[in-house]
């Protein structure tokens, strides 16, 4: 039970959280972004007060160990395994086999060759044991994190946003692994804002908002029976069930073709396979195009080729009937703007104010239309919160006044509330006549936003109806929804 906890003595982030968990049980912790879920993780493992100079008041018992005391804190790794949100923020060793060995070496195990191989085998990475980690795919890296977190046989395993950055196939895999851990008798905590994947597995349920415990349910049946709770969860940015398709946006007739791509073939190196094979695409003014596909299928490449960063081998790209295929990016001007997944890539200056002085729109106009920026003008863009940085990135894109805006996975990690803000931003921009093209594996974008939907597979693109795309993305998760 944690009475109060925070990073700085004058600022309490968490208040009054209380729960207990036994082996073989799964606790699902949900809440909107910024509600303190991750802080809870740091507080209960003792990291907050021992490593980060924060404070925790209360009482935590991890299998007989009190992680809040400096004497017991070193014992925490023996009983706990942690899988963090982003594998790139967790993996530290050159190869998978080194990574799984790391924990064992730290804890003083000896003679663990076999254990290394069997654990790697369990997550399907045995044949890549000595491949350098940077060559693994996102899903493989995630599995590696899982392997590294369970190799020392911990009693409790904590997952922080396990489905972040994973496509539906990856999510399906992770859910299976988590279920296996539960079945083995370990205690499992899953922190998520996409609760819908885990409601069937959860034995206990905790909703946090603004650092306070709002709902705490024990027992599997009570969770499924509290429908009113499920509905109110949506207001907290937590999705507990599959979104419902309320209406399919009617595709209005094409007033003018803004972006046309035909017969696009592209590969990075002449001796490798083609990444893009004969891509055709057409977007009219007011369209929101959404390209769905697995991670690594080539969606980002397609966006980058359209943006002009790479020249295609064959085919052409036209903006408003002007062929821009052979033109270099720097000369293309502001026909198209690519917004990367990571907002930090976008910033050049050290003050927000300087970032806004771009494009053709005068500064006063910008300041009057973007009111949220008022108090932040002298801040460094990097010190803004994640959400504010995204918003700044979108604003900068708008300032260049492009006809086409390309988004690469814009909704990764966004909870329902932030997602809705993004949707309304896109709708506003599109109503001004611009065209938006989004590459994503997030099924939520297909509801109430997409006017044209494409599925990308094996380097080829085909235009489909919204229902088919939804089915494509929901398919792998079928077994967990039933």
């Amino acid at each position, binding site marked *: 039970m944690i009475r109060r906890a925070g990073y700085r003595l004058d600022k309490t982030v968490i208040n009054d959280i209380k729960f207990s968990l036994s082996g073989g049980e799964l606790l699902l912790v949900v809440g909107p972004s910024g509600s303190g879920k991750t802080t809870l993780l*740091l507080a209960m*493992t003792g*990291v907050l007060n021992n*490593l*980060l100079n924060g404070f925790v008041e209360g009482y935590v018992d991890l299998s007989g160990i009190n992680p809040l005391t400096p004497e017991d804190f*070193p014992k*925490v*790794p*023996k009983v*706990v395994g*942690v899988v*963090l*949100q*982003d594998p*790139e*923020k*967790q*993996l*530290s*060793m*050159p*190869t998978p086999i*080194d990574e799984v060995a*790391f*924990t064992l*070496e*730290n*804890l*003083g195990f000896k003679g663990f060759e076999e254990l290394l191989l069997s654990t790697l085998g369990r997550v399907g990475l045995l044949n890549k044991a000595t491949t350098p*980690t*940077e060559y693994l795919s996102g899903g493989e890296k995630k599995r590696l994190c899982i392997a*590294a977190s369970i190799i020392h046989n911990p009693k409790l395993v904590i997952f922080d946003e396990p489905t972040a950055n994973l496509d539906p196939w990856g999510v399906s895999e992770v859910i299976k692994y988590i279920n296996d851990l539960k079945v083995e008798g370990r205690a499992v905590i899953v922190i998520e804002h996409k609760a819908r994947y885990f409601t069937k597995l959860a034995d206990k349920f905790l909703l946090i908002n603004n650092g306070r415990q709002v709902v705490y349910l024990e027992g599997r049946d009570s969770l499924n029976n509290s429908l009113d709770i499920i509905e109110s969860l949506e207001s907290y940015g937590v999705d507990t069930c599959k979104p419902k398709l309320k209406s399919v946006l009617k595709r209005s007739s094409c007033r003018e073709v803004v972006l046309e791509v035909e017969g696009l073939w592209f590969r990075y190196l002449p001796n490798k396979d083609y990444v893009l094979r004969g891509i055709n695409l057409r977007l009219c003014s007011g369209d929101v195009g959404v390209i769905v596909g697995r991670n690594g299928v080539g969606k980002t490449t397609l966006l*980058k080729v359209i*943006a002009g*960063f790479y020249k295609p081998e064959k085919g052409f790209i036209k903006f408003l009937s002007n062929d821009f295929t052979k033109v270099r*990016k*720097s000369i293309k001007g502001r026909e198209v*703007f*690519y917004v*990367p997944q*990571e907002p*930090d*890539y*976008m*910033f*050049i*200056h*050290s003050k927000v104010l300087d970032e806004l002085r*771009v494009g053709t729109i005068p500064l006063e106009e910008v300041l009057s239309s973007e009111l949220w920026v008022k108090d932040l003008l002298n801040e*460094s863009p*990097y010190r803004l919160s994640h959400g504010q940085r995204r918003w700044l990135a979108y604003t*900068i894109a708008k300032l*260049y006044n492009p006809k086409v805006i390309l988004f690469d996975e814009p909704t990764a990690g966004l909870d329902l509330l932030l997602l809705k803000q993004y949707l309304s931003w896109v709708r506003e921009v599109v109503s001004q006549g611009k065209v938006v093209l989004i590459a994503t594996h997030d099924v939520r974008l297909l509801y109430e936003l997409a006017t044209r939907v494409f599925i990308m597979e094996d380097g080829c693109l085909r235009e489909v109806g919204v229902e088919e795309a939804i089915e494509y993305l929901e398919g792998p998760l079928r077994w967990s929804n039933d």
Partner: protein
Amino acid sequence: MIKPKPTTLFIYGLVITILAFISRRFEQLLILALVNTPVGVVLGFRRYSVIIALFFIGLIGLFVNALMFSNVGNPVLEFYGLVIREGVFTAFVNVMLRLLSILGATLIFITQVNARDLIKSLECELGLPKTIAFATAVGLRMLNILERDLREIQLVRVERGFRKYPITPSDIGSFLRPLLSLGLERALWVGIAAELRGFSQRSSRRVGIKITYVDICVYTLLITQVITVLMI
């Protein structure tokens, strides 16, 4: 053939480089260059031909420098009114030999050793403290990720009409900021993860130096050079 241990080659390369730095005389440098450069070039010719080529191009610049600043002594050549004196050649040859020896030793090292084995070897055999061993391993991983970040940053820079490569100090600042921001966030969580995996309790994994006959050959070669060079 068994390869020498990474630690052996590391020590070899380091000592040769230090020797090259402290040797001031032509005879000393000649020995170092004659021993190390051929071996290095032969080993590294295929993979590092570009670097070897660039090195020799750099020698041209070196000669130009020698011409500008060491043109003293008796004249040796006359070239369209430009008098080249012996000072130029002695200077140039000495420095060239020094650089060649270092190049040779470095090539020997980088063709035979890879990063991962070296870190392990340094930790287990030389007893490199876990702080440095871990920092280097993480550093290498971060380097790969940061290079990827760098490419993305450059794409957006071009898109926004800025230079792709930094020229002024302020440009460097604009590259540093996003790299730091992204890198530090990663470092924070990797650090937390490492701590939660028991890093603070990691004890020295020193096993002690195991030497094979190949290593002995390398060390013999090294010691011979040291003695010869210091005695001349």
